[in-house]
């Protein structure tokens, strides 16, 4: 992970630590927010507000937390579209490799990982800088 991502990870880790009862759980980029940390909707809303304030970026909750993922996958199937290309259009902050992981993983439960949040923050930060 590059230094910029490391810094973002550390800040997100602090935010999550302040919001959740982690009970000694370690947070890495690969940690699932809902599956591993038990984050609930209200926790993620609070995280969105903290990210907005801490990184000075606009946060679209639906997008960063992948709330409409299943709907998009169904929509792609209904329209005979390639799921990965369809999701790439909806989640431009995720790279193709991560999207492939998500497609393969989604039947096992909520797919949102800490690294997705980091990707969103960096993407939005770059967009704001440009």
């Amino acid at each position, binding site marked *: 992970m590059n230094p910029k991502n490391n810094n973002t990870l550390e800040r997100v880790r602090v935010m999550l630590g302040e919001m959740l009862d982690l009970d000694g759980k370690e947070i890495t980029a690969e940690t699932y927010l809902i599956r591993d940390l038990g984050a609930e909707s*209200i926790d993620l809303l*609070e995280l*969105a*507000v*903290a990210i*907005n*304030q801490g990184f000075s970026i606009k946060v679209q909750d639906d997008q960063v937390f992948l709330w409409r993922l299943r709907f998009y996958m169904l929509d792609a199937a209904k329209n005979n579209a390639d799921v990965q290309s369809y999701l790439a259009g909806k989640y431009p902050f995720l790279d193709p490799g991560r999207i492939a992981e998500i497609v393969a993983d989604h039947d096992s439960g909520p797919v949102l990982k800490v690294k997705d949040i980091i990707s969103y923050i960096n993407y939005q930060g770059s967009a704001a800088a440009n």
Partner: protein
Amino acid sequence: MQLEFAGRRALIFGGTCDLAICLAELMMGSAIFPVLTYRDDEGRKLIRESLGPEDGRYQTAFLKKGERASLERLFAGDAANIDYFVDFAQGDYERFVAAADEDEVDSYFSENTAFRAEVLKMAARSMLKRKKGRLVFVSSSAAARANKGQGFYAAAKLASEQLYKSIGIELGPRGITTVSLRPGYVDCGRGSRFLHDRGDEPLKKVPFGRALDKLEVAKTVMFLLSDAARGINATEILMDGGMTQVK
């Protein structure tokens, strides 16, 4: 009993109506700094004529219903750190449902329901940063019992009450609570005009025997904002002199 207030800064949405200005005066007397929204120069002038020059006791802020840019500016600046949010904003559209113009209906709900949801999102997120906040919606007894022609007004009030109720349910665990107040006939603003046009007839249905005055409604809003009333959450309170309880 002296009311206590943990917060110090309030945003009054729809700050140009008589009730809002009356409430702002009470707030200033209780060491709460009110920020009153206005949507045009005339509204701002009205606030200043009523409350005096903006000399650090209160502030005005531009917010136009339906105009997202003004909303974002407001919450990036004057309303960034509010403890209280009081909502008086409400347009009127009095028509029989079967006589309404489709475009007017669309515009009415866009301004009075959808835009309110946007304002509430910003207010709630602002409060969520500090894990405390109190929101009071000044609804109407028309939400419980609408007269002919008040269908759209009542529908917008009911929809808005539900938005407030949902915030109280969803964010209560984070210290953010809500309540809707449903005043009956109030002898000020739109209410005065209504009572003037119809004479004493509407008041015959009120066991209380008279219209409310703006000060008693504003004082009730102050109580609902106070620390003592925090337990009144995600609900509606009628203040109509008993009007909706009789046949």
